[in-house]
Each structure stands twice: as structure tokens, then as C-alpha cells.
């Protein structure tokens, strides 16, 4: 078995460096290693064993062990295995070795755990502040347990300016965002432009922090978090809702009922349908093809209606509680859903047949925003972006959850690596979702929709869950805790990885392709920015002030 083989290889190589191993199932491996070998173990998994980097997590474990915890999660997609490399560090200035030089996908995660938990990644190639607002005082780390959730730092430097990196020789800076017509949410790219060509960029984001992880760890309880988790994203909310519930269930060794698993699968696919239709519409809108934008939204509307009929809301389904779901699908809803997907299939087939032959849109999107397979691996890119670059990964097949192991579907892959391929992948995935829903509807067993949970959930257990969101794999990591709430809940939305690939995808493209490339990963900034506690007033004042926008514009003319 692969997990044993992997463990053997690791033990051969690192021997005493590995202090403890937890194998909670054939699909999960928790390696507790000494800080000294953390970097080598990670590099070994990534380079030699060809794992995909999923996410890095920092946690404050000081109330329990007096130490800080750092974990790097790796995925073995062909082998249905997640491996978490965990280490503990102590001291007043805790440090681990950075792995970002060898595993660039870890870049943001490492900066994030310094910002939030205060564990420094020593030797990080670009250790700039990523998440905290500019005026946040140095040395205060909001995810530490001794910081209250509503902490307002006294010495907030509201006048502190963000320092951009130096412009490369011969370039001018063009600000893209924070508010840009093609972005629905704030993010700022400072593009270095040489004539029409983009030579590089600096990203500055995390402007929509809402402190969700901190709230979950300090204020909310297990069954309240799902309602907030789905507010991480306005489009793929159900994904986070399900992923959170699954992570807790895994940590507490509970299983949801069979019917609940089917209902989760159905609602996740309903969500994918609406998200893909929305995205294809928006992509066409960005490319200037508003006809299809309108038609996609028209075709999408019945999907929203049926979701409303089943769950009581068009978008926020409020679906999961730990151990099951809240809404049952009655006969009426099943018939309704069948009718909706039948119509949708017909209509969408017509649209795809027309659009896939449309030369104009092909010319606009071919060879734009190229993400090579190498880049996908290096930056850990996910979902349709990876699949459009010939990398066949899909959490539904590779790490099956809910009822995905009981349905048949194809993973759509295209090879041309560009925006056009991403359009095709998403357009065709709509048919696969329809297939999955059909199978679920016919196979769904009767029974209760939620498991009865009578005991308190055990504390200090770890759970990983991965759900294929419309934009790629959403990855949740939970450490259970006392008082009916988790100790640590880390959410890694797909855009968190995909956005890190953008600077490479736009390099050497023309300025006009920027919007399309960015649009093609279907960026979701709120998902990416989900963490943090900040003073809402001072932050919004700082970030969105007209003065700052003005000064950005001025800088451009220099």
C-alpha cells in the first residue's frame, strides 16, 4: 500500500527526525517531525515523491503544550492520500525553516503564519507583510490565543503607507484595482509595464478580511460555524460549508448518514452548475461578448430557483450541520430538479455547439494567460486552471468524499494551457455535473438526513477535508478543541493558490490581456481574504480612501 511504502521511505531517510506518526485511515498521514528536519521532509515529499503542496498552517498551541504548531499539508492525488507534516516550535520568537525557495506554492502560507501566529519562516525569499493591514503594529499576531477576537491595537499607525517594491528599470507602474470594472471585489495589482508588455507585477490583496477563522476559534460553536463558513464565498459557499463539516466529522470520527452524503453531493453539483454558468457568462463579458453573458445568466436562473425551492435560499443553502444536512429532498423537489437539469442540458448543448466554433472568441482567448504544466506544479494551481493545462486533478475523483465514490463521471482535461482551454473545461464540466446529479437522484437511499450525536466531540484531534469547488480544491484543516468549538480552523480556498500563479501567467503578455487572464482563474478575493481580525473602521478607511487611489494614479504618471 502506498501509505506504508511512503512511511518506510520517510523512516529510512529521516529516522529519528520523525517523532510520531498518526495514520487515522488509509487516506490520512500525520507526521510529527522535529523542527530541524521539517524543511527536508517537505522538500522530499514535493520533489522526490511528487506530492502537490496544499497549504501551510500555523496554530497557537501555547495554552496546551506551550508551543506553536506549524503544519504543511501535501496531497498525493493519484493515491488518495493527504500527508500533513507537523512540527512544534517554542520560544518568544518562534521560527521554522522556510520551504518557499524550493516549494514556491508555500510562499503565501508562510507569510500568513508569520502575520497571524507569529512563527517566522526563516530564509523566506519575500517576507513582506501579506495579510495584516499596513497600520497594524508589528509584533501583534491576531490568531494567538491571548489576543481577544475583538482586539483593537492601541498603537495602530493609521498613517503608515504601504511600501511598494522598486520599479524595474525602464518600466512604468500601472495600477490595476483595488476597484476595477472587471473585478467584483477589491484586490490591487501593481503592474510593471514596458510599452504594452507586462514585465511583472506586485500583488496586494487581503482587503476583504472578516476575521472568520478567529471568530470560529473564539466565539462560535461547531454547529454555528457552517452558517458562517458558507459566507466565506458568495459563489461557492456550500463548498466551504460541506468542507468544514467534513473536516470536523473526520477529526471526531463521526460519519454523516448515507442520505446526507447524497444530498451534499447533489447540492455541491447544483452549486457547480450555477457557478460555471456564471463564470462562462462573466468571461464572455470580459471578452466583450455580452450576448453569451446574458444567455448564460438566463440559462442559470432555473438552477437558482430550484436551489431556493430545496434549501430556502438561492445561494446560501445553510446546508450542513455536523453529521448531516438540514434540508431533505422530497419527491417534488427531485422531480423539479430533474426537469431543471434536463432543460439545462438541452440549452447548454446548443450554446456550447455555437460558442466552441466561434472564431472571434477563440482569437481573443487563445494563447492568453498561459499556465504551463510546470507552473501548475510549482505554484500548486488547482481546478479548471490545472485541468486546462493537461494536469488531471480533481478532488472529487482523487480524494472522494460525500457520495462521489458511488457515481461515475469524467474529469475534463484540455492541453492548450490558455484561457480558451479554461472556457472549454468549464463549459464541458456542466454536463458532468448534470450526469452526477442524475445518478445521485436515482441512487439516493432513504433514511435520516442527520446522524444523532450524543457525546461531546473529542478535543485535540485533527481533520483534513478537501472539496472540489468550481474553481479548484478547497482545503480545510481543523483541530478540535474544548467548549464545543475548534481550536484551529484553517481554510484554503482555491483562489489562494491560483492567484499566486497570476504574476507568471501575465508576464510578457499585453496589458489588455490582464483582465481576461485574471478573470480566467475565476478569482474570488473574499475567499482568499477570509482570515483576520481588524478594526473594520480604520481598515476600510485606510484601504479604500480616495486619497490613496489618487496617489496611486499620480504615481502612474511619474
Amino acid at each position, binding site marked *: 500500500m502506498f501509505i506504508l511504502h511512503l512511511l518506510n521511505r520517510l523512516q529510512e531517510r529521516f529516522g529519528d527526525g520523525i517523532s510520531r506518526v498518526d495514520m487515522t485511515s488509509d487516506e490520512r498521514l500525520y507526521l510529527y517531525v522535529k523542527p530541524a528536519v521539517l524543511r527536508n521532509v517537505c522538500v522530499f515529499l514535493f520533489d522526490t515523491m511528487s506530492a502537490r503542496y496544499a497549504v501551510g498552517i500555523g496554530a497557537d498551541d501555547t495554552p496546551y503544550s506551550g508551543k506553536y504548531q506549524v503544519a504543511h499539508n501535501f496531497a498525493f492525488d493519484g493515491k488518495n492520500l493527504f500527508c500533513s507534516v507537523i512540527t512544534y516550535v517554542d520560544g518568544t520568537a518562534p521560527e521554522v525553516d522556510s520551504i518557499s525557495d524550493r516549494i514556491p506554492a508555500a510562499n503565501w502560507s508562510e507569510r500568513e503564519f508569520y502575520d497571524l501566529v507569529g512563527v517566522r519562516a526563516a530564509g523566506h525569499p519575500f517576507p513582506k507583510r501579506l495579510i495584516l493591514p499596513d497600520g497594524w503594529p508589528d509584533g501583534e499576531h491576531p490568531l494567538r490565543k491571548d489576543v481577544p477576537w*475583538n482586539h483593537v491595537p492601541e498603537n495602530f499607525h493609521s498613517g503608515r503607507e504601504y511600501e511598494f517594491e522598486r520599479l524595474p528599470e525602464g518600466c512604468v507602474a500601472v495600477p490595476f484595482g483595488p476597484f476595477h470594472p472587471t473585478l467584483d471585489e477589491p484586490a490591487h495589482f501593481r503592474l510593471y509595464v514596458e510599452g504594452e508588455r507586462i514585465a511583472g507585477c506586485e500583488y496586494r490583496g487581503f482587503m476583504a478580511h472578516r476575521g472568520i477563522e478567529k471568530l470560529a476559534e473564539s466565539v462560535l460553536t461547531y454547529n*454555528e460555524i457552517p452558517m458562517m463558513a458558507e459566507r466565506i464565498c458568495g459563489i461557492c459557499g456550500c463548498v466551504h460549508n460541506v468542507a468544514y463539516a467534513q473536516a470536523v466529522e473526520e477529526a471526531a470520527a463521526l460519519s454523516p448518514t448515507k442520505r446526507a452524503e447524497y444530498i451534499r453531493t447533489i447540492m455541491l453539483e447544483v452549486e457547480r452548475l450555477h457557478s460555471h454558468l456564471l463564470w462562462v457568462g462573466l468571461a464572455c463579458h470580459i471578452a466583450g461578448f455580452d450576448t453569451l453573458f446574458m*444567455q448564460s445568466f*438566463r440559462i442559470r436562473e432555473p438552477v437558482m430557483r430550484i436551489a431556493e425551492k430545496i434549501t430556502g435560499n438561492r445561494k*446560501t443553502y*445553510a446546508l450542513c450541520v455536523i453529521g448531516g444536512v438540514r434540508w431533505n429532498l422530497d419527491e417534488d423537489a427531485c422531480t423539479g430538479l430533474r426537469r431543471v437539469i434536463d432543460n439545462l442540458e438541452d440549452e447548454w448543448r446548443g450554446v456550447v455547439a455555437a460558442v466552441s466554433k466561434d472564431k472571434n472568441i477563440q482569437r481573443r482567448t487563445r494563447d492568453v494567460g498561459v499556465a504551463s504544466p510546470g507552473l501548475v506544479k510549482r505554484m500548486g494551481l488547482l481546478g479548471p486552471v490545472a485541468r486546462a493545462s493537461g494536469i488531471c486533478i480533481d478532488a472529487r475523483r482523487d480524494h472522494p468524499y460525500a457520495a462521489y465514490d458511488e457515481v461515475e463521471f469524467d474529469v475534463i482535461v484540455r492541453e492548450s494551457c490558455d484561457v480558451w482551454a479554461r472556457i472549454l473545461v468549464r463549459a464541458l464540466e456542466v454536463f458532468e455535473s448534470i450526469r452526477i446529479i442524475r445518478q445521485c437522484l436515482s441512487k439516493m437511499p432513504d433514511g435520516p438526513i442527520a446522524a444523532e450525536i450524543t457525546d461531546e466531540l473529542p478535543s485535540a484531534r485533527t481533520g483534513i477535508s478537501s472539496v472540489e469547488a468550481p474553481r479548484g480544491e478547497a482545503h480545510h484543516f481543523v483541530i478540535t478543541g474544548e467548549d464545543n468549538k475548534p481550536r484551529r480552523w484553517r481554510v484554503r480556498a482555491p483562489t489562494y493558490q491560483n492567484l499566486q500563479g497570476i504574476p507568471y501567467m501575465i508576464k510578457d503578455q499585453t496589458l489588455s490581456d490582464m483582465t481576461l487572464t485574471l478573470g480566467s482563474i475565476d478569482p474570488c478575493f473574499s475567499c482568499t481574504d477570509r482570515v483576520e481580525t481588524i478594526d*473594520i473602521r480604520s481598515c476600510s478607511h485606510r484601504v479604500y480612501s480616495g486619497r490613496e487611489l489618487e496617489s496611486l494614479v499620480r504615481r502612474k504618471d511619474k
Partner: protein
Amino acid sequence: MSLAAKIKEVLICLRAGRVTLPYPFEPATVPKAFRGRPIFDVERCVGCAGCANNCPAREILVEDVCQEVRILKYLGRRCTYCGRCADLCPENAITMSNEFETATDEISDVGQTLELFMGTCQRCGRCFTSPTPLEELKLKGYRIDDLMNERWVFRSKPFLNEEKTVDDIDIELD
């Protein structure tokens, strides 16, 4: 080939016709399961505080003003219409209504305050045996409901200061 594609696209648009609804000139209907603004029924509520204890948005505050009167205040401003309160209410005192057009410049329009007369035990004079659900809620160490300022405060705080704090964004229009 592209011309054929264009013709197909035109046909798709033409066949669809006009789909825009006349809303807001005609009211929009919602399905039966719709989750709109929760409405509390004072006749049914027994003041168990189950809803307050499980509301993800902390929108329901409870305070005992004396032995026999309990105030339950639903604020209605951050409410996510998740329906957890309605799920958990043992007396079905909460209905998720059809109301979704709740925009208002007076925040109290969407809130509701229930004054509950609590029946007491003839023998011991209490409404619930100790620890009551409300006491349990507060024992957990996370909240004291401050009805006057419409907020809940951490129990670990030594005292309540008068002014509203960052606990809540003040969304009231002046």
C-alpha cells in the same frame, strides 16, 4: 464556419425571447421553503433561550429583568436568515416568513422584543431548575447580554463600559 456559429448564437437569443420579470411592479413570489425574516410568536415562546444559544450571528439577546419576566430581543440587523433558531425552538415559536424586502431606515422595524412572563414553580419559586438554560449559556464563559446597548459582551470582561464598542458596527442611520 464562424458564420454558422454566429447564426446559431442569434437563434439561441431569439428563441429565448423576453425573460425579464416585471418585478418590482408586480410582487415576486417565493417558494414554500423560503427562509425570510424570522418572526417570533410571543404566545408560544417559553423563554428557554435555545435560539439565543445557537444563533450564529448572535442576534438574539435574553435577559431576566426579574424572577418572572424575561426579555427576549431579536435584533434583526446581522441576521443571516439561516433558520437555525426556527429549527431548534422546541415550541415552534419561530417561523421563517416570506419577507425578504426588509430594507428600512429604521432598524427597529426588523427587530422584535418579546416580554415573557415566566411561570414559576409553586414549591421552589423558580421557572427552571438550576442551572437554567440561560444560566448555562452564561456559564460557558462567553456572554453577558447587554440589552440596553444591544450587544453581547464577553463574560471575561471585568465590567461593561457604557459606550457601544466595536462589538457591533453601528449601522443605524441617524
